[in-house]
């Protein structure tokens, strides 16, 4: 982790010295992780990409004021979560049709195994979206990105105890949702 921190700091130093390449390396390094977090939190493909772009633009604009008191990744994920919260606040009552359309398209075509995988995938995503955002954010950071409880507590600015209970409650919600969607089995 320390290596990664030093590596990120050297890219930041490169950027601050006027070399845009430093920023581009950071983008290439984190783009998939950010995309998967955003996608797990909001589901919509096109909007996930736009949010991801907004996140990195925010990083670009404020990297000069980043104090390096925390890891770059922690700071980045904080921006990700806040940007997603803002997006969802703006579209409080949003209902996505995209996933449903995507699902039905797969249902009509594809081989049987692929179909089952996609159906399961859609079921997990639907279950994830069924749980309250603060619990969802904690479990996504843990299981999608593999952050530790300490890192999650830094990103979400709460205690480790809170992270622990949010992840536990998120998994319980997920269990109930998956039971419902899977007809009594997970």
């Amino acid at each position: 982790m320390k290596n990664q921190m030093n590596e990120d700091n050297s890219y930041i130093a490169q950027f601050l010295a006027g070399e845009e390449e430093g920023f581009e390396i950071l983008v290439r390094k984190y783009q998939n992780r950010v995309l998967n977090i955003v996608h797990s939190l909001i589901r919509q493909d096109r909007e996930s990409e736009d949010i991801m772009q907004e996140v990195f633009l925010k990083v670009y604009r404020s990297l000069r004021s980043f104090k390096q008191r925390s890891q770059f990744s922690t700071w980045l994920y904080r921006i990700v979560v806040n940007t997603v919260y803002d997006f969802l606040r703006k579209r409080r009552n949003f209902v996505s049709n995209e996933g449903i359309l995507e699902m039905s398209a797969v249902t009509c075509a594809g081989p049987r195994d692929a179909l089952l995988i996609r159906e399961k995938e859609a079921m997990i995503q639907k279950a994830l979206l069924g749980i309250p955002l603060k619990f969802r954010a904690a479990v996504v950071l843990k299981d999608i990105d593999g952050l530790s409880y300490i890192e999650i507590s830094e990103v979400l600015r709460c205690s480790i105890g809170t992270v622990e209970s949010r992840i536990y409650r998120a998994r319980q919600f997920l269990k109930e949702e998956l039971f419902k969607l899977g007809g009594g089995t997970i």
Partner: protein
Amino acid sequence: MKECIKECIRVRKLLSRYIDKEVGRSDTILIEDHLDVCFFCKKELRELSRVKELVLKKERKVLPQDYLVCRLRQEIAGERRMMKQESWLTGLEDFSRKVIPIPVTVIVLSTVFMILSSRQQLSEYPLEEHLLSGAQTTTETALGLMLAARD
């Protein structure tokens, strides 16, 4: 019975951390000892582990390496162009704010000077006489004559 429920509550609070391998040694022992004797907590552990497994198996999206970098380059270049344009316009605005008062002041001062000088020249030259002479009447002359007539 009460003791057992108390322990169940305590263990369940720790179950997620246990699944994530984030518990200390003493808590691990406590949880494992309890799981050996509690069917319900064992079932809960199995189900929560399955949930974690399913989320872990969730498909991960992978972007082409330079996809986002290209999008960002375009966006940043656009922003820079906008900023340049804005700063050019602001500069022009500042410049005009500084420069415009100079000719205005010059015009005002020269008008005042001309009025005063024509007033001095025409102090003994009445307005009626000037009008009857058929000479060209400029604004300055007229004003000077009127002021002189008033005096």
